[in-house]
């Protein structure tokens, strides 16, 4: 008997019949040719999150984002009018990358009044207008007003900055995000500004790592050594079941039940968890963040654990019941590698005790993520061998099934524009 009720169809997977229940192929994760199609059809078409408004605190604040999968670099900047804008990071004169420090391929950030090209000194204002050309009279019919920085579609939702690299018109960001994601409106992301940021390159296709974090079926096994033996044994015997899965357009959500560690026998928690009153699920003392938005905890679980919103294509917002949240970004660098970024956001601690509890949660997060990341390299190698080409997914892995289907739909849809998506 399942611990949580399943939909009337008998399973979450069958509740979304377009997904099917057959074993799936990972050809989309081992094929250089498919990766080339994905670049055009997914990463140059979908809205991509590149950061938060807190990273651009005032007029003139900027940062650059390398989007290797789209072969471009983008400048994000807050203008004199307070608006956040995005531009391709390229000078209109001879094509030099406009904003960078020592290393041409590395991201940078800072505050400035104008952007000046290192090569010949052309200058652009914060709104992208070309303002100064060195020895302008030497040029032929140069129209400065027609040679501003090339804009990138840019929009902000709940403080998250998104860009879209399409050359033509695009669907409004909130339409793309849809009702399931925008039901998070009102979550106090702007109050959770104490940030830990992590980064690594993973030698696996980006979708395989997304799969790792959109199912928790693996958790009692892969992470068994993280907990006292007695807890691990109980967790493995119980297995994992989510009370709720949801799919809305290209996006998906898993919600989990919580654990009241503070009520548990001391043999089931680590001494440092008891001492710091914190652990994987976050600080045991939950800050008062006011009323939560309607889109959170859709199964109304008590205790509730977390909601993991998987935003197509490569962005995750994971909100914990204990008043903190994570984001994940998966930036492809080749068919079998990507940059993985993890961010952990807490309310700013006012006491040392709160801060130590946050440290415990952040360090625990890193140790779990290391185990997940290392497993992915092993999966990539094994799948690339090609000797097994169909893989069995259970009902707790319904979201993995959906991601691979949506990517295939976008790729095929883009290549056959006559067919409706």
């Amino acid at each position, binding site marked *: 008997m399942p611990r949580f009720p399943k939909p009337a169809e008998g399973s979450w997977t069958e509740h979304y019949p377009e997904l099917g229940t057959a074993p799936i192929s990972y050809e989309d994760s081992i094929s250089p040719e498919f990766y080339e199609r994905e670049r055009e059809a997914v990463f140059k078409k979908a809205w991509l999150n590149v950061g938060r408004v807190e990273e651009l605190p005032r007029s003139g604040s900027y940062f650059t984002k390398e989007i290797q999968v789209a072969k471009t670099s983008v400048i994000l900047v807050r203008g004199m009018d307070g608006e956040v804008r995005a531009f391709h990071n390229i000078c209109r004169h001879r094509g030099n990358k406009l904003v960078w420090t020592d290393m041409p391929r590395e991201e940078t950030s800072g505050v400035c009044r104008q952007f000046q090209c290192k090569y010949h000194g052309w200058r652009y204002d914060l709104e992208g207008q070309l303002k100064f050309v060195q020895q302008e009279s030497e040029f032929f019919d140069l129209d400065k007003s027609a040679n501003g920085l090339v804009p990138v579609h840019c929009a902000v939702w709940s403080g998250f900055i998104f860009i879209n690299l399409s050359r033509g018109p695009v669907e409004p960001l909130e339409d793309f995000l849809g009702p399931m994601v925008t039901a998070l409106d009102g979550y106090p992301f702007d109050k959770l500004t*104490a*940030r*830990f*940021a*992590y*980064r*690594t390159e*993973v030698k696996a296709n980006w979708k395989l790592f997304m799969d790792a974090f959109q199912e928790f079926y693996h958790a009692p096994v*892969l992470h068994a*050594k*993280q*907990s*006292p033996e007695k807890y691990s044994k109980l967790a493995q015997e119980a297995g994992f079941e989510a009370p709720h899965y949801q799919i809305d357009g290209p996006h998906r959500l898993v919600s989990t039940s919580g654990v009241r560690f503070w009520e548990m026998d001391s043999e089931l928690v*680590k*001494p*440092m968890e008891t*001492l*710091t009153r914190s652990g994987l699920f976050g600080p045991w003392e939950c800050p008062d963040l006011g009323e939560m938005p309607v889109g959170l905890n859709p199964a109304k679980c008590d205790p509730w654990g977390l909601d993991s919103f998987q935003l197509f294509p490569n962005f995750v917002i994971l909100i914990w019941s204990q008043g903190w949240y994570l984001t994940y970004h998966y930036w492809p660098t080749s068919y079998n590698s990507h940059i*993985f970024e*993890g961010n952990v956001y*807490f309310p*700013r*601690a*006012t*006491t*040392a*005790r*709160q*801060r*130590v509890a*946050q*440290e*415990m949660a*952040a*360090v*625990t997060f*890193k*140790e779990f*993520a*290391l*185990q997940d*990341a*290392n*497993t992915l*390299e092993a999966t990539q190698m094994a799948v690339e061998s090609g000797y097994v080409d169909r893989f069995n997914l259970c009902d707790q892995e319904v979201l993995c099934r959906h991601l691979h289907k949506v990517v295939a739909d976008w790729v095929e849809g883009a290549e056959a524009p006559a067919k409706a998506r």
Partner: protein
Amino acid sequence: MALLPTEFADLEPYAATWCLGSEPERYAIRLASTMPEMFAFYAAITPRAEAAMSYLDQFPLSDLSDDATNLLHLLYSLVMVSFPVEAWSQPKVPDTGATTFECHIEPVP
């Protein structure tokens, strides 16, 4: 020159090694330490951790003196070594080979 508040003079022998202000430094010293070194540090700090937090909670977190900040960093290092000591009996989390996950931004303090 003492690094820690006088109330925690007994922990001074650990201060020079373990009062580290950034996660990359704390993570690196964990990987570079032996299990006996970490057991000794853990055994010395753990019984004093509750007193250390109570002491630090007398002051606003945004305005800690240098010696109080060192004590806070010592607690961060205690968190860092607790994983090998309490769970894995090895400096690096099991099954992670050459994988890294670098922390490049963290709240201060």
